[in-house]
């Protein structure tokens, strides 16, 4: 593992408050947004964030759990994955 950076993807039906709800959870867990992109793809709200964690005591499972719960409340699917999962697959 070369960093503590995560790709967060949020996919679902668009509605008011998705960005607010998701970023509030991130703030609570002290997770910083490095880059963010948001678009509507095939009628689905799609938000992708590159997030960084500096906190040494960061608890990934707890963060993933909170994000999933918030996703359920908002009716969207949220995934938190280490950036290496994408870098290894798409870059040599």
């Amino acid at each position: 593992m070369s960093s503590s950076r995560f790709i967060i993807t949020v996919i679902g039906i668009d509605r008011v408050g998705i960005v607010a709800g998701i970023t509030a959870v991130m703030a609570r867990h002290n997770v910083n947004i490095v880059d963010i992109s948001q678009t509507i793809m095939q009628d689905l709200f799609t938000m992708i964030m590159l997030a960084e964690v500096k906190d040494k005591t960061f608890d990934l499972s707890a963060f993933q759990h909170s994000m999933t719960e918030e996703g359920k409340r908002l009716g969207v699917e949220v995934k938190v994955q280490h950036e290496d999962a994408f870098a290894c697959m798409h870059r040599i």
Partner: protein
Amino acid sequence: MYAQDLKGEIMLIHPEEILETIQMVTTENLDIRTVTMGINLRDCCHPDIDEFNSNIYEKITTYAKDLVPVTDEISRLYGVPIVNKRISVTPIAIVAEACKCDDYVPIAKTLDKAASKVGVNFIGGFSSLVHKGMTHGDMRLISSIPQALATTEKVCSSVNVATTNAGINMDAVALMGDVIKQTAALTADRNGIGCAKLVVFANAPEDNPFMAGAFHGVGEADRSINVGVSGPGVVNAAVRALKDPTLNEISETIKKTAFKITRMGEKVGREVSSRLNAQFGVLDLSLAPTPAVGDSVAAILEAMGLERCGTHGTTAALAMLNDAVKKGGSMASSSVGGLSGAFIPVSEDAGMIRAVQDGSLSLEKLEAMTSVCSVGLDMIAVPGDTPVSTISAIIADEMAIGMINCKTTAVRLIPVPGRKVGDEVEFGGLLGRAPVMPVNPFSSEKFISRGGKIPAPIQALNN
């Protein structure tokens, strides 16, 4: 999106690439099929079987203590499912040889107990390598197989009866026909499921992570991690997305897809082994189907343009698939090994089952297919009254394909007690369900009863 690559440089990952990875996992069944820890048991030998059992229990439960929690942690970190955690051990026939006893069933029970303790779903290595001849330990192990598989849940067994360099040990082939029948009989109440945990090999790889044939070879480190990656569903989706492709385009797409899948497996394997302080062994990229719809090797062959898997052209299509998978995989990782290719287990692949039911796929065609893909006649149900010599002869044919082509082949047949051609048997879970297939009714008895060896082929003389 900017992300750091492995050298720490900033680079761009396109949102579409991110979504592609996510789609592979969520809708196309991309998974790491197994993380298998290989454990050397050579330092556990003891003349007293109780001492020996206590040594192997202690070693396995110590070495694999963190296998399941660490693997689950990595699965969460990368967001990719790791379906199975397994253990392979040094072939028991070797390490138990010094035990002063005739029955190795208690050893199988100890392996079962150790596997349960650390939470893995299979433990492989109740195995023996007899391609050139048998020792007393080999004989004891092989005669313990039926009872061992009937009285344990997680133990898997394999016997290597042929290699390109040694030829085929036909005495062992004859014996294994009988062992398979006995194993089926002892698990008759569960459709002969014991046989699903027993593989007969030619040129068995020493680092294969897939069950039921995994064992930890004698040339391996004390502890290693071998990873099996799968993804027929991903390849199937990629091929089906092409618009009127040529075969070259299909091959190219399979290669690229195999590359991506392998890279994910490599990442997982290296991370798991570094956290467990084990040597990273091999990455086995095998298209291993599951009963899930679309997660099927037959479906890929049909996507190439065959009306039904098993029809004329199937062997050619499979040869191209298998080769493209290997090429993509070998570019993606320097550690590709094990079986690496396409698996064609009938009971585990919804497309194969349909092809058999529709009369398109026969045992003979499956045998032809095994000459161009990894493994062999896998998870095939045959009538319960199939003669022992016929089972041995089916094994002999498959071993010959492996021996002559310098490749691994295997046989995992289930002569289902009391069942006839056309019946269907349910094994449950990943093992799926199998239609009982007909075998050739003419006898092979005299050929098998001759015994002895089929000498090593001319290919063996390569020094």
